[in-house]
């Protein structure tokens, strides 16, 4: 379980997160929506310790992410994260991209790592592209590779940061299908997205971010179908 407790985060004098609290239960899918600059990406990066926080705390399975004695490299093994930019390692083939962390971080043998990588790449529909370099893939394929790469670490949680925003419209569907597949397998996920229809379909809960706070949170029927806050209504109007 991920417990975010009243976190505050500033970049210099700019306060980006102004007291965010959110609990994500095992198996839950929480979508995060909200305007540009509201702090959604920053929150995700605080969860796996890529960014420090000034106040509050985040517990992942009871471990305090920002405690001094926490082994972040170890903690990150169970939190997969996929970013908006697909971030392939360009000097490695698709298969090597996915095998690298299991081998170096988990110490898996080449055979084991390869077996898992092939499996994950098959799951995301890239079984034909194992020996290809990422530059030869479409954006959607690169993004699916990035998802497979995170999944190969066998994480307990997956965080997605606008994984379809940089894609051509016709490639969005294939990546969303991959997320659907994950949610149906019971993966615990936090999905930052601008795809409101998708959020409504897959989420157990939807959180609307506004100016560094969770402004409204609840079931998709509630937050997207029948929002109460004027800011939520205005935001949904602007994106739908």
């Amino acid at each position, binding site marked *: 379980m991920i417990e975010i407790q009243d976190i505050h985060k500033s970049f210099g004098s700019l306060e980006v997160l102004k007291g965010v609290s959110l609990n994500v239960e095992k198996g839950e899918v929480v979508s995060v929506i909200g305007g540009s600059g509201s702090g959604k990406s920053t929150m995700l*990066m605080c969860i*796996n310790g*890529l960014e420090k926080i000034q106040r509050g705390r985040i517990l992942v399975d009871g471990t305090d992410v920002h405690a001094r004695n926490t082994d972040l*490299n*170890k903690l*990150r*093994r169970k*939190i*997969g*994260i996929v*970013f908006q*930019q697909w*971030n392939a*390692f*360009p*000097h490695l083939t698709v298969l090597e991209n996915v095998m*690298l*962390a299991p081998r*170096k*971080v*988990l110490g898996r043998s080449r055979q084991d790592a390869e077996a898992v990588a092939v499996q994950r790449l098959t799951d995301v529909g890239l079984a034909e592209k194992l020996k290809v*370099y*990422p*530059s030869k893939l479409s954006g959607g394929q690169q993004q699916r590779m*990035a998802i497979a*790469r*995170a999944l190969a*670490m066998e994480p307990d949680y997956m965080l997605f940061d606008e994984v379809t925003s940089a894609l051509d419209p016709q490639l969005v569907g294939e990546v969303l299908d991959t997320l659907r597949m994950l949610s149906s397998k019971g993966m615990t996920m936090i999905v930052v997205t601008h795809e409101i229809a998708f959020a409504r379909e897959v989420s157990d809960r939807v959180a609307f971010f506004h100016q560094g706070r969770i402004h409204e949170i609840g079931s998709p029927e509630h937050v997207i179908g029948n929002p109460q806050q004027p800011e939520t209504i205005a935001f949904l109007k602007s994106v739908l």
Partner: protein
Amino acid sequence: MFSTSMSWHDLGFVLQGAGVTLAVTFWAILLGTVLGMLFGLIRAVSPWWIAAPLGVVLDVPRSVPLLIQLVIINSFKSIIGVNASPFVVSCVVLGIYASAYCSEIVRGGILAVPTTTRRAARSLGMTYWQDLKEIVFPMALRVMLPSWIGLTLGVMKDTALVLWIGIIELLRASQIIVTRIQEPLFVLTVAGLIYFAMSFPIARLGAWLEKRWQEND
């Protein structure tokens, strides 16, 4: 019909000089690359109060003319009583000179790797050093290669300056022949062709590697 008084023996002498040029280039680039990697890495990843002073120190070999550096260090070594041959002095001076340029190339290459890619590596649980070794260096290498090839070719030409501390390398060997047979045009053309023959494979190797990498990314 063209005729010259340059004998096969003279050509052998010039080729011997070319061997010295290659040897000095090799050791200087080896030393320069090893030190340059180290300095460049330090400059790219350490806090400003380490990176900035190191940058200033490395500006010295880059801004003082190589000839002056060679002569000063060569005289200095006898003052402090170090028994180094002019050959060793040449390799060290050129090596440090090359390391200053190389550190710039390495620093640029490392900084060219996008932070987002490094974050992706770290969020997979890789350590700081694993990220450097598996992601940053291989990616930086592709950026660095063309400038590094350029540096190597430049150093090879700069080795001509070591004749000033008494080393008979390719240019000096050619001068000696010119002085004797008085055919500067012909002898220097031969020397120029030899320089070209030594540089060409390095340039081609660089172009080939670059092309191979470009096919991938």
